[in-house]
């Protein structure tokens, strides 16, 4: 079966979406990613969508679901590389991705994830006191 590869980068998982995904593939990715977060105890997920030519309501919902699920499993999600034309269209479609952080590229996404994790650690440390 066709699958989107998920790479482990230290504490993070990197998903690079490179094809025009049909809906079943989107569902498979959602399941695979949940499993991998649990198995690897990843602290963060980077989703690189720079190759995606559109984000419609279905893929938008998937991205939101992944972020929500990851949060339940104590991992943060950052979506990187959304093309400007895709972002413009998303707004007109009426889709907002509440709770989904975005960054321009994988590098800045990685930095953002690190910052988010540091903040989380600090908050945990101060509430433990």
């Amino acid at each position, binding site marked *: 079966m066709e699958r989107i590869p998920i790479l482990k980068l230290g504490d993070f998982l990197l998903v690079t979406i490179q094809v*025009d995904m*049909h809906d079943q593939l989107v569902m498979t990715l959602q399941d695979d990613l949940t499993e991998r977060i649990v198995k690897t105890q990843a602290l963060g997920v980077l989703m690189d969508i720079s190759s995606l030519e*559109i984000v*419609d*309501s*279905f893929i938008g919902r998937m991205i939101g679901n992944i972020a929500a699920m990851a949060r339940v499993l104590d991992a943060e999600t950052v979506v990187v590389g959304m*093309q400007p034309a895709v972002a413009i*269209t998303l707004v007109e479609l*009426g*889709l907002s991705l509440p709770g989904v952080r975005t960054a321009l590229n994988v590098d800045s996404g990685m930095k953002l994830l690190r910052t988010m994790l540091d903040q989380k650690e600090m908050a945990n440390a101060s509430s433990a006191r």
Partner: protein
Amino acid sequence: MPVQRDEVMPIRSSEDVVRVRQMVRQWAVTLGFSLVDQTKIVTAASELARNTLGYGGGGEVQLEIVQKGIRSGLRLTFIDQGPGILDIELALKDGYTTGGGLGLGLSGAKRLSNEFEIFSRPGEGTRVSITRWK
């Protein structure tokens, strides 16, 4: 409105939905649409094709290049013989869904197009037509 070119594609599987997106992209590029306009019509097509498949039980889409004066445009008509829509006004509301979606497909496709028409009657299927002008 004179029609320059037209083609019909089946929508019977989620792979067909991908093929419809790709064909709409090709046609929009041929027409010289800007990248943003291409993205808008492809996104609208994706929404409507998925509705045709999921709610209409499958159907087809007709792609047409239409001309109005010196303007050319891309018109897409999605047709199914499914259960139809009881309350079209309600179905067009942002957030209304009977299938656990976001309820943004129909209303979003309307916003992403220059012209939008919908005909549907319970038991007689649904036809949604959108046009985007260059």
